[in-house]
């Protein structure tokens, strides 16, 4: 910007001849950033971009176990795999749709729960008091813990006879009768939601805490002087100011939960129907039948869904902020 201003102001010497001469003396100067970026570019191309394109190609092939070692020989099938995946009358499409709905339900509950917990903790830890630092650190531990050790601990807690959950609910608090199964049947859905929230809410807390730090303190003072109570301040000062943070946070929470593979994979030997999240569903469908073509078609459909939701969400947010 400033370059253009000096060039047109008249006093500066004409710039055009200067550029090429300089470049000839220092050819490294302009190539250097590209050279610096090349390793990252190669790595991303090799592990993300190229496999993604290969995956899109695979979804059009009859790629069954006979062709894994020689996949170029797999016959072209056009959109057959997609037709099978979305045919809700067939067994494959029916299971995929079921898994999709389970995933949506888990995601909605987890995003809402994690966000609420995170907001509550961030708001109540806003004012300094003794022990605040300790609580802040403690609340981050679930996020720092490797996911598989956390989930395996929950798996132990949800054991029918030796687990802590049944011991507390049934034997100590007498809230439920007998020892229900948590990792089989309908309860597995609840187990999945609880574990996901436990793992994710610290991230919401972290993000919202940082967001609150950018809220100027005198805004609260002013609101308090105007007679606004706690709930009123939360609704008219805190939440509107957190809107930009929330926009990104909710999207991240959504994507992480929707795509999650780790929790159901470690929690169950084989996920029950009520806990059959989409990633592990595609995984099992692909590696049990070794039909990679069909698995790739399902993955592409998943990506398409996520892209539509993400772009729609970001677009709606932009539209709203323009009208505001």
């Amino acid at each position, binding site marked *: 910007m400033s370059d253009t201003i000096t060039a047109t102001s008249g006093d500066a010497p004409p710039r055009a001849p200067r550029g090429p001469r300089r470049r000839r003396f220092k050819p490294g100067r302009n190539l*250097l*950033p590209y050279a*610096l*970026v090349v*390793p*990252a570019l190669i*790595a*991303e191309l090799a*592990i*993300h*971009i*190229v*496999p*993604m394109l290969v*995956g899109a190609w695979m979804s059009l092939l009859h790629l069954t176990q006979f062709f*894994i070692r020689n*996949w170029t020989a797999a016959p072209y099938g056009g959109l057959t795999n997609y037709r099978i995946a979305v045919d809700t009358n067939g067994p494959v499409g029916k299971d995929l749709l079921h898994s999709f709905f389970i995933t949506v339900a888990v995601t909605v509950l987890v995003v809402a729960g994690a966000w609420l917990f995170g907001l*509550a*903790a961030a708001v109540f*830890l806003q004012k300094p008091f003794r022990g605040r630092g300790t609580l802040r*650190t403690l*609340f981050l*531990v*679930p996020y*720092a*813990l*490797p996911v*598989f*050790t*956390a989930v*395996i*601990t*929950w*798996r*132990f807690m949800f*054991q029918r*006879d*030796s687990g802590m959950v049944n011991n507390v609910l049934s034997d100590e608090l007498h809230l439920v009768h007998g020892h229900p199964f948590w990792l089989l049947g309908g309860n597995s859905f609840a187990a999945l939601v609880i574990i996901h929230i*436990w793992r994710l809410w610290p991230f919401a807390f*972290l993000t919202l805490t*940082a*967001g609150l730090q950018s809220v100027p303190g005198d805004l609260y003072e002013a609101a*308090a002087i105007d007679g606004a109570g*706690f709930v009123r301040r939360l609704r008219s000062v805190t939440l509107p100011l957190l809107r*930009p*943070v929330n*926009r*990104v946070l909710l999207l991240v929470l959504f994507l992480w939960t929707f*795509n999650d593979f*780790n929790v159901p*994979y*470690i929690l169950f030997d084989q996920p029950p129907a009520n806990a059959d999240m989409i990633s592990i569903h595609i*995984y099992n469908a692909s*590696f049990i039948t070794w039909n990679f073509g069909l*698995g790739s078609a399902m*993955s*592409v459909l*998943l*990506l398409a869904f*996520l892209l539509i939701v993400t772009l729609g969400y970001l677009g709606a947010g932009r539209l709203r902020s323009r009208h505001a």
Partner: protein
Amino acid sequence: MRESSAVRWARRVVLTLLTVFTVLPLYVMVVSSIKPLQDVQGAFTWIPTHVTFRPFIDMWQTVPLGRYFVNSLIVALCATVCSVTIAIFTGYAVSRYRFAGRGTFMTVVLSTQMFPGILFLLPLFLIFVNIDRYTGITLYGSRLGLIITYLTFALPFSIWLIAGYFDTIPRELDEAARVDGAGPMRTLFSVLLPVAAPGIVAVAIYAFMTAWGEVLFASVLTDQSTRTLAVGLREYANQAQVYWNEVMAASVVISLPVVVGFLALQKFLVHGLTAGAVKS
């Protein structure tokens, strides 16, 4: 600003509940790791009948935990070193140069972060198997394949964080170094890196945590000899007779280094992890 007692009580109740929710699994993990086997097989008890450290010794025999540990360590360390090195160069370019395609590059790199892993898994598996077939380079079932894969997982966020740290360093420092006759690389290594050191360490911890905790790709791209902890620990729990005290002891040992590292550097990490969300 005075608080009503209702708010004060709400704060106490909410924070207590959240603390209990957070601590329960941590407590179960630690307390079960020092229980004898009959204690974890019967009904759950809050206090162990007697404390034993046997699980921490026995766990190495029940499954080849030592081998898993070494595998995880090698894979995570190599992936961390590689991705941090690459991220430093890339972050330097992104922060200090306005080159054509810079915006597109960052958008593409960052958006790979949102795609579901399952999308890359099948093609990557197939590509690895076929690379082996045609070139003899073993990526499938080897640590190398896993290292390459993991380094790209941490890369987008690492680049973004490091570029962010470099952005906070005033350009006058670069220019002073230039005047003293330092070239661009010299400037990076002797001026920017020392200043950005805490940020680099935070990024390294992030990269290590990413590789240390990855499950999906490890479950497919490893075999018996290269299996990592993430998959090995699940095997433990899938056996007919589960030694839960040993599983919990192993979990404590596996978690401790990362949790301590994270908490020690949380200030830098938290800053970096949340900067983006706050900025946008």
